[in-house]
């Protein structure tokens, strides 16, 4: 399986008034055809920066190194005009905030149609017809009526459907979904995930899912990349990673997920938190970035940041003490 999207040694550094900040450090991952890869981590760990780097939409004070290729085509060296053709056609994106991601002054039909007119050169009429199909695809009730409506006439879930319809209008190869369900209530969340699943099956879109919701990950992802403070710290297929987490941070994340089923079995009632905060990185780390919050930390952790090392057939972790004494409770499985 040749990867559709290949990110290799991607680093992003922001030049701020307080000096350079390393937002992403040598991130490497691939997304295969029809594959759903989840980027997981706390707020500020570099998930969204990674996705914006793929689309080349970072502000000018960000310096990006490494390689990003789509079907073998290098995106980092494309001209501004060429990357604009890629955006929305080959790689598109949906956001966390459906309430504010649509322009309040334009109708739904116009906004979906704009993408089609721009990338597919459709006429207004063709674009309208296609927009109806797209709204049907995202299971929008009364699709034709919606075309003439304005965003304020739709609920959050419906707006997110419109955003998805816009994002998949040109059948993109990769869809980047940046916390697509965070702002929606759970019933709508499940519907949106169903729609994403269908898109993968029907349109053949690969999905890069950015989230901190492990429930969503377990539900839809094939592979998971765990990020912490700009570093990729664990990577692997979702089942392996959830059943045999190697990095103490992954273990901690899984321990912080509410599990009503465990509670019913008489498991521990309290969620376990990870003490401390994500550090802001100024320059390359001289010790393991997670060491200050880590229960396994020893002297060696203060000396160097461990590289990703293989811990299973397809699983990798960046930890000096990978897999040791993992306090995995019985029953934590995807």
């Amino acid at each position, binding site marked *: 399986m040749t990867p559709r999207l290949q990110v290799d040694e991607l680093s992003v550094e922001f030049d701020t008034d307080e000096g350079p900040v390393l937002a992403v450090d040598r991130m490497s991952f691939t997304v295969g055809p029809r594959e759903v890869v989840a980027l997981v981590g706390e707020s500020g760990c570099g998930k969204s920066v990674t996705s914006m780097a793929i*689309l080349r*939409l970072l502000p000018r004070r960000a310096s990006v190194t490494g390689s990003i290729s789509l079907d073998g085509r290098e995106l980092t060296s494309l001209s501004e005009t060429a990357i*604009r*053709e*890629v*955006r*929305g*056609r080959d790689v*598109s*994106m949906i*956001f966390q*905030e459906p309430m*504010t*991601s*649509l*322009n*309040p*002054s*334009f109708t739904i039909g116009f906004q979906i149609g*704009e*993408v089609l007119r*721009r*990338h597919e050169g459709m006429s207004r009429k063709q674009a309208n017809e296609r927009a109806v199909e797209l709204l049907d695809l995202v299971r929008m009730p*009364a699709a*034709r*009526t919606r075309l*003439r*409506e304005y965003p304020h006439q739709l609920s959050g879930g419906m707006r997110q459907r419109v*955003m998805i319809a*816009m*994002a998949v209008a040109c059948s993109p190869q990769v869809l980047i979904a940046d916390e697509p369900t965070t702002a929606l209530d759970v019933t709508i969340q499940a519907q949106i995930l169903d729609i994403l699943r269908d898109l993968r099956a029907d349109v053949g879109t690969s999905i890069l899912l950015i989230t901190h919701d492990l429930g969503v990950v377990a539900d839809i992802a094939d592979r998971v990349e765990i990020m912490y403070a700009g570093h990729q710290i664990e990577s692997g297929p979702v089942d392996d990673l959830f059943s045999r987490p190697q990095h103490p941070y992954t273990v901690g994340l899984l321990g912080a997920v509410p599990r009503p089923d465990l509670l019913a079995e008489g498991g521990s009632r309290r969620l376990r938190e990870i003490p401390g905060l994500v550090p802001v990185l100024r320059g390359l780390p001289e010790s393991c970035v997670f060491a200050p919050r880590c229960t396994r930390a020893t002297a060696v952790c203060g000396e160097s940041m461990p590289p990703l090392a293989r811990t299973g057939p397809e699983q990798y972790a960046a930890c000096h003490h990978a897999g040791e004494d993992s306090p995995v409770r019985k029953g934590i499985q995807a």
Partner: protein
Amino acid sequence: MTVAVATELTARAQQRRRLRRRFTRRPTAVIGLVGIVVFVLVALFGPLLSPDDPNATNYNAIFVSPFSPGHLLGTDDLGRDVLSRLIVGTRASMEAGVLATLIAAVIGVLCGLFAGYYRGWLDTLVARATDVLLSFPFAVLAVGLASILGPSLTNAIIALAVSLIPTFIRVTRAEVLGLREQDYVQAALVSGATTRFIVFGHILRNCLTPLVVQATVAIPGSIIGAAMLSFLGLGEQPPTASWGTMLSESQNYLGQAAWFALFPGAAIALATLSFNMFGDGLADVLDPKGDQ
């Protein structure tokens, strides 16, 4: 399909009806609108409406008092019919008000849009230039520019337009700075939209409301400004009639014929008041939070 079209039509009709009701419920706004319509009609059809030749002098009928037969508003120091001069002079005032505002709006909005969207050195340059121009009072700037350009109506309009540009830049730029950070602008970037569509579609469309309101404030401002420049001899040149030149001519005769100054002054005040009342009403109607 037909059902869809029907509901859509009613939705739009409802929206329009709601806006109209919000407007008509404000009597000041309606009066303002009526005033504007009257002034615009007079400006357009002035020469046809004026009872006399505005430039015909009659030395046998100097300072005829108002409400005399044949001269409803009396005659001036050269025996010219004041009503006719007032009517014909409306065009110069309206032209100055509308044209100066239009020119200022186009230039100011363009500068504000690009400065606010691109930021960087362009923005710094535009914003600092705006600050410099705004540090002069409007009247001083307009008089200064008009005297450099030389006295004529065209130059007066140019001077007024230039003096109005900085406020339009400031209003637009402030809006753009907020709008460019909106999620839908980000979403448009992500979907590969061109800069032109983002700036003129997404952003300009959403700053129209404050701009329309700004324009209704700028028009009366430049009507007064034009009258001021003519009064100082920097605008429309005599013998051509304009409200400002009439005021200027009247000042020498305030002791003998005070009413001579009253009529052009009243015309300026009424025109300004109409635009201001309309503008206030419009601002209320266009503000989505203003619906009680």
